């Protein structure tokens, strides 16, 4: 196996496996690694495991859905981040900066406010995210002639602020005893109350979003070129761009609809993935997915083990992500050049 393939597959896979196992083992009720594996094997095989009933319940009913949610949400955010960075030809954009997360949260918060079912919340989150990225991209096109990166970022900030105001409006209107705490907790980002049903409900959207990314894994590289250059190479850029933006927005919306706002993953993880796997999207995508999933599961494990009360995820990812971003700005230009 070549050194590149080793970096692109073995390292992320090993990290991911270690994180998953640790996450299932640690917690308020300790279960040994051997027992965890036995419980999972037994449940999958449909037999009773030779372990205490409580341990089986904790692992199978409580920790596993949460780990699965972390895996899916982290992978989805990292995957969409990798796509957005490529499409906007800018390693500093992410679903957060482009307003996708803000747009999705307006949709999702509205859904919570209207007490809609999870699928409808996902749908609204998708529509909100797509609307936000469409506006940001339109502003980017209209303000042609200026530094496109700056325009995108500033447009994202402005749209994000506007959407934040919409979220605040919904909060003011929400029932302060029932909906408001749910909305607030959701906006901080958390996997604490994720059920197996929640996890299963986002699987179709995530698969649907990943399919075009996997199919277009090589074409995606061409979309990181100047638009006219890509067209001259024979790529129907407009169509592919739309498909991939929709796919990445779908991933973000699906993630946001069960986890709330978990920032920075879409920015940070693709960077690390690129330094392991290189810029070729066919190689980058699986690494970003694995690292994103592993990273969020790790952070979520910290969130539930760090203190007596649960620390909201968004707080932890921001505490790690924001300094990383600043470090990138200052020191690590060569990390993507």
């Amino acid at each position, binding site marked *: 196996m070549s050194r590149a393939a080793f970096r692109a597959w073995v390292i992320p896979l090993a990290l991911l496996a270690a994180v998953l196992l640790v996450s299932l083992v640690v917690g308020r009720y300790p279960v040994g690694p051997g027992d965890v594996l036995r419980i999972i094997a037994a449940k999958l095989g449909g037999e009773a495991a030779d372990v205490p009933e409580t341990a089986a319940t904790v692992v199978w009913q409580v920790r596993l859905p949460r780990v699965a949610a972390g895996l899916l949400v982290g992978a989805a955010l990292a995957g969409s981040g990798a796509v957005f960075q490529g499409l906007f030809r800018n*390693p500093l954009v992410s679903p957060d900066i482009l307003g996708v997360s803000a747009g999705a949260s307006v949709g999702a918060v509205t859904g919570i406010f209207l007490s809609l079912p999870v699928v409808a919340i996902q749908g609204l989150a998708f529509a909100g995210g797509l609307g936000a990225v469409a506006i940001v991209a339109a502003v980017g096109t209209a303000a042609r002639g200026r530094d496109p990166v700056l325009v995108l970022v500033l447009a994202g900030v402005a749209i994000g602020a506007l959407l934040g105001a919409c979220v605040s409006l919904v909060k003011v209107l929400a029932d302060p005893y029932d909906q408001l705490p749910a909305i607030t907790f959701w906006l901080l980002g958390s996997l604490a109350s994720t059920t197996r049903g929640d996890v299963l409900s986002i699987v179709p959207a995530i698969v649907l979003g990943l399919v075009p990314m996997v199919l277009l894994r090589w074409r995606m590289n061409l979309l990181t*070129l100047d638009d006219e*250059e890509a067209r001259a190479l*024979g790529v129907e850029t407009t169509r592919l761009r739309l498909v991939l933006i929709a796919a990445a927005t779908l991933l973000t919306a699906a993630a946001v609809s069960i986890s709330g706002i978990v920032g920075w993953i879409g920015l940070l993880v693709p960077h690390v993935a690129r330094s392991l796997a290189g*810029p070729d999207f066919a190689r980058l995508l699986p690494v970003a997915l694995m690292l994103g999933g592993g990273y969020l599961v790790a952070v979520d494990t910290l969130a539930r083990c760090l203190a007596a009360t649960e620390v909201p995820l968004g707080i932890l990812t921001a505490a790690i992500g924001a300094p990383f971003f600043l470090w990138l700005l200052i020191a690590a230009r060569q990390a993507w050049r």
Partner: protein
Amino acid sequence: MLTAVDLAFGYRGVRVGGGVNLAIAPGEVFCLLGPNGCGKTTLFRTLLGLLPPHAGRVELDGKPVAAFSRAEFARRIAYVPQAGAPTFPFSVADVVLMGRASRIATFAAPGPADHAAARAALATIGIAHLAERRFSEVSGGERQMTLIARALAQEPGLVVMDEPTASLDFGNQARVIAQVRALGARGIAVVLSTHDPGQAFACASRVALMRRGEIVSLGRPTATLKPEALRALYGVDVTVAWLEPAGRRVCIPTLE
């Protein structure tokens, strides 16, 4: 193969030039000269179907360019843009492989044949040793060679090059012009723009002079690149002379 008939061109709402009639023959090297801002790049973008014509038409083998899909067009005509800085650290081999895009199905990745074509293109241009280097880290001249190799990997009948020698040092300009000649010798037509009339003597079979969006003169280099014509084009006195050791005409500004 590529023809422009009464072509007017420009951006949306802004006409840059017009009255262009051109017919590029297979295997010829066609050089476009003109001062900065006269519309060379806009004309090229229109010829490449990247901008719609304001009036008139651009045809490839008798069919309007707009009737081709981007992939069909790219299999016949390659474009070497002015080399910009890429966002992501692709290797030189990755960049050349991208030239295969029009020959790879939308949902597929490059196969062994594509990798072989990319390697062959690198070898032909003489930069096989750069294959694993980052495109963003090689020199400007090597970057231009990479883009020419990418165009070659596209296996086109015609390559359009927008100022391929701009911002290159003396040696790299010569290397690029040598590659242009080599493309022509291989039967691949080249349309290029340049700021150096001497380069037209070195590589072109025909040359066009462009001024304020119009082609004012077109023909063989020896017939077209006269001192008077160049003076009218650039506003400086020019000496054109046969240089025996080089075996061709050269063109230099006459400084007072």
